[in-house]
């Protein structure tokens, strides 16, 4: 971590007669002031309770959502001023086009998030320094046995945690030119893997659908994943047999196994050149999946089919096809492996099944499509809210998400349930067969999901499996008055630590329950408040810096177990603890 990032200082002067605040934006490497940076001041809360960060995982629209942020451009000396600022809670962000990672008030590293702060009436905030970190670049050449390879998609991938799994995600995509050369740029400092792959930006009608290039101004967290069609090359052998092949992604320096890929550590302002990728491996013979799509036993014409690989690749190759008049389909370009095959008709019928493709074509697959099942459910409120009133059930919505939720999969039926009836009952229409994770939107801050059952099945524990219309009702019990945890994070010298990450991790038996994890960050005074916790035992941690989501990795949690504070949470009670922040390793 760059120590310079800790140099963010805010002095709060209580008198309105103080001189104009010399707030500045500076270059993180040289310490020189940066002119021409855009600084924005966003109000995130009108004037709420003291810096309580909203619990993670809840939809919490900031109250000032429709407010226009204050905006300024730094002068030659890097200074900026905002006046006529209404009291409230704010976040302060600086950006500069063309090669700087955004800087935010309170951030602990170039790519870390900052924190919000309070501004009261008449207050002047001075001596704020926002650090902008120069980005880095990676360049090289992609070649095969015959020489440079043009129009390949080259991607910079970054490891992240998602639902406790470590996986790669795409930061930027560019194309090689006719000389095989590429240049990835505006990359925040960090660790990257580089991959090259053929990319078809055209569909079968030769319409350009995309160039496969995705470049954005450097973002600290905005990464993405992609699904595209495989590029199939075919060779007609002298026997008349047609052999179809595809080039699977190759990772720098020239491996198809991501585990064998070489990591590139980029420092701010650096350029890693000569990152050449040898495309001399990874040509795989592809297979076909053939079959028929049936609705009520009748063949369906013009149904769309996609074969979605069951892998953690952030840039999936999805073979696709369409049924002909007799309902039959023939999907080309399938690399051996595990797939979900989905069929979709217009309008709205879906079907799918899981299958394994080996070293042969798959024939005679029958995919039935339906308009989905009707799932009935009921919200049950347990207990009374802390305010003493009843929880407003009408705002609650059950939502379904596929599990696993792989890009390219058809929607999991309705995005969310319609408003429940006064008795809490609701229904979801058109839920396709599959595995789902159920969550509840618009839960009040102190509420939590106490249980979720479908007949005898614990849905919170094992997920929702839909094969046809279930006979039982999905019963979701909402605990209106969950437990809370307040406290302070301190360093070894017992001084409060701001912008520390505070996490509560469920007990060892419940570590697979991602709904039970909660995280927040400490405010300027090192305080935190987590609400809406289900009763039970938890381990609480505070880190000065940790990669987002890493705490869902059991290995990581085990390695820090000795720093944990064990807490017992009960409905309606706030526990108070002091956590010693674990310093960045």
């Amino acid at each position: 971590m760059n120590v310079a990032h800790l140099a963010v200082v805010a002095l709060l002067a209580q008198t309105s007669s103080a001189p104009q605040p010399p707030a500045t934006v500076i270059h993180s490497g040289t310490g020189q002031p940066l002119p021409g940076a855009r600084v924005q001041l966003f109000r995130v809360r009108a004037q709420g309770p003291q810096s309580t960060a909203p619990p993670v995982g809840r939809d919490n629209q900031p109250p000032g959502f429709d407010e226009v942020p204050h905006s300024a451009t730094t002068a030659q000396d890097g200074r900026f001023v905002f006046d006529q600022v209404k009291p409230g809670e704010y976040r302060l962000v600086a950006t500069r086009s063309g090669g700087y990672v955004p800087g935010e008030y309170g951030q602990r590293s170039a790519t870390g998030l900052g924190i919000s702060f309070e501004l009261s009436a008449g207050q002047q905030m001075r001596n704020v320094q926002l650090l902008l970190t120069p980005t880095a670049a990676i360049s090289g050449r992609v070649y095969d046995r015959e020489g440079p390879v043009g129009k390949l998609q080259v991607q910079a991938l970054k490891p992240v945690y998602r639902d406790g799994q470590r996986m790669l995600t795409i930061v930027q995509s560019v194309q090689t030119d006719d000389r095989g050369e590429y240049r990835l740029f505006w990359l925040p400092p960090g660790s990257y893997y580089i991959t090259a792959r053929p990319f078809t930006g055209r569909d079968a009608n030769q319409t350009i659908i995309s160039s496969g290039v995705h470049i954005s101004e450097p973002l600290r967290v905005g990464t993405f994943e992609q699904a595209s069609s495989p590029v199939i090359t075919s060779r007609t052998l002298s026997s008349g047999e047609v052999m179809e092949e595809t080039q699977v992604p190759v990772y720098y320096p020239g491996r198809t196994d991501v585990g064998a890929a070489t990591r590139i550590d980029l420092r701010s302002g650096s350029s890693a050149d000569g990152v050449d990728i040898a495309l001399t491996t990874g040509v795989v013979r592809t297979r076909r999946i053939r079959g028929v799509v049936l609705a009520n036993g009748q063949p369906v014409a013009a149904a769309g089919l996609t074969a979605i690989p069951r892998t953690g690749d952030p840039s999936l190759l999805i073979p696709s096809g369409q049924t002909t008049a007799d309902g039959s389909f023939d999907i080309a370009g399938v690399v051996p492996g595990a797939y979900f095959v989905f069929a979709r008709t217009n309008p709205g019928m879906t079907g799918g099944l899981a299958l394994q493709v080996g070293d042969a074509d798959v024939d005679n697959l029958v995919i039935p499509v339906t308009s989905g099942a009707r799932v009935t459910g009921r919200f049950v409120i347990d207990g009374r809210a802390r305010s003493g009133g009843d929880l407003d059930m009408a705002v609650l919505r059950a939502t379904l998400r596929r599990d696993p939720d792989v890009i390219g999969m058809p929607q999991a039926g309705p995005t969310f349930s319609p408003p429940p009836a006064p008795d809490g009952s609701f229904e979801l229409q058109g839920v396709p067969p599959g595995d789902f994770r159920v969550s509840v939107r618009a839960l009040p801050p102190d509420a939590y999901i106490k249980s979720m059952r479908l007949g005898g099945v614990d849905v919170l524990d094992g997920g929702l499996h839909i094969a046809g219309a279930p006979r039982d009702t999905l019963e979701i019990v909402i605990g209106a008055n969950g437990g809370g945890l307040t406290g302070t994070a301190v360093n070894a010298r017992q001084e409060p630590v701001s912008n520390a990450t505070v996490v509560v991790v469920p007990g060892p038996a419940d570590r697979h329950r991602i709904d039970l994890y909660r995280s927040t960050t400490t405010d300027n005074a090192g305080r935190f408040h987590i609400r809406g916790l289900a009763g039970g035992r938890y381990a609480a941690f505070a880190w000065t810096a940790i990669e987002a989501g890493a705490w869902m990795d059991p290995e990581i949690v085990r390695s820090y177990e000795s720093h944990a504070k064990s807490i017992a949470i009960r409905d309606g009670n706030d526990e108070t603890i002091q956590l010693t922040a674990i310093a960045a390793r």
Partner: protein
Amino acid sequence: MNHKPRSNHKAGWICWLDWLRLVGVSCCVDVLVLAGAALLAAPAQNAQTPPGSSGAIRGIVVRAGTAEALAKAVVDLRGDDDRLPAIGSTTTETDGRFLFPNVRPGTYRLIVTRPGDVSRPIDVTVSGGRTEDLAVAMTATGAIAGRVYGQNGEPLGNVEVSALKSSYQNGHRVLTAVQSVRTNDRGEYRLFWLSPGRYAVRATHPDAEAGPMAMIGPPRIGGGYRFQIMAGGGLGPNGVFEIRSTGDPVLADTFGVGIDTPAERFLPVYFPGTTDDQTATAIDLRAGADIGAIDVPVAPVRARHVRGVVINGATGQVAQYAGLSEVQAGIPPGRSIGGPDSGRLSNNGLNPIDPDGSFDVTLLPGRHTLMGTAGTGVGFVSLEVRDADLDGARIVAVPAFNITGRIVTDAPVERPDLTNVRISLWRDLGVPTPSSSYSLPRADGTFVVSAGPGDYQVSLLPFLSVAPGTSEFVVPVPKGFEQAYVKSIRLGDVDVLNARLRLEGATASALEIVLGMNPGAVEGTVVNGTQANAAGATVALLPNVRGRFDLVRTATADASGRFRMDHVAPGQYKLFGWNEVVDGDWLDPDFTGASENRGVPIQVEDAMTSRVRLALAP
């Protein structure tokens, strides 16, 4: 060349190998091409094969003008219908060879593509169990490279740079983007694998791409908020492209936030540095060329105020509650296609027009046509915004008046029914603007059209199109009028077919449209300077009234150099021919101007076929 011996020889392979031996020993291009041509014309290899049995298509892909065999060429075999998927597809290896065995008799189209080379589609007929041998010559593509920089010479990254193919439609240069790339952090770009031709280069700053961002708001805090970034793509039956965000999008969307109407905006800039596509420099890219230093400066432009009044033409007074909009190319005046710049005028968020008829709008530099309305009246003003505000613009909105007319034929037609013919007047506003309405004639051929003062072109579908080649409503040809053409249109004594129709106010004169029933034809032969026939040459017949794009005819000379053009309206023409020409170049006044004296004058008469022998310049 590397010819690997094959172990699975079949009878047909013997001849194949013989041929390859012939090609293999020759490093002379002519021999190769002639060898291919000779085999193409060769009789069936097996005279006993019944005509209905399957044949084969095989060949070799070489670089044009050389004997160099090309690997990685994708050879697609397609049927008559280009929209259907390929019947077969194969990729060449280092020997450049390809083979489609067991091809059923029929006509096919062979489309060969390769990274870095282009070729024309080849039509091939398979019959009687014959094996068709082809030599496919591919032409090397070219590249255009350069740098995009800002006001202070600083490199601009992530700027979209497009190569636009230049063509002419109805007298206007039309630029069509064929490739787009993005500059890197050093401002560098490289457009590559471009077919030889003439290109304009355009740089589009990200801020100019899709108008101002609509997203307003503070950063989204915390997780639980998934959003789709970079909308676009989809999951279709013919291909998949989808992208979605991972990770928490915290602060990901702060860029571009804000509703302050910026005083400065970015417009697409064409090389060498103009925002006007008509003055963009065309870059002549030859086969294999690598053109560098096509640098484009990109700076924001400042919107300027244009102030004026809308006058009610009926009263001569400043109009109350007038309307104001901007006319956009290709859209009927007063209509909008939606989108951020769709003719909606703004004045920094204020209402652009006061109830008293005065207006104040902000417009970016360039040519604009404003339309004012007052009551039932409509008026226009065309102006060019440069680097200063414009004051005193006047739009006189005049109600439309009726013009009567009739359609007659120059020869009797049995039970003529022209009641589905569409007559409309296209206003000439400097940009092509379709008419928003049309009239239908009565059973006796008379009609009434409505228009205000201005210059017009008459459209009479399906016989006369003002903008041939553009998407227009398809009107079926009335029975008995299959050969009809528009012979003349007159308003009183004035020819308004070959010149604009100028209306200054209501007129007692009637529009008379004469349909000719017996068009002429042109046929002939094309020879090269050496007197050899010019098979495959392109021939274009251009009217002496060059603005009549509806009269332009083109043809391709057949294997014996012959061509024919039917359904030609009588009149004065010039005939041009080329062995190699970029499609549509003959509509470029600069192009034909340079070779005007090579055109052969032709008089086309009613019901006559004019014959001509056209010698191409060496």
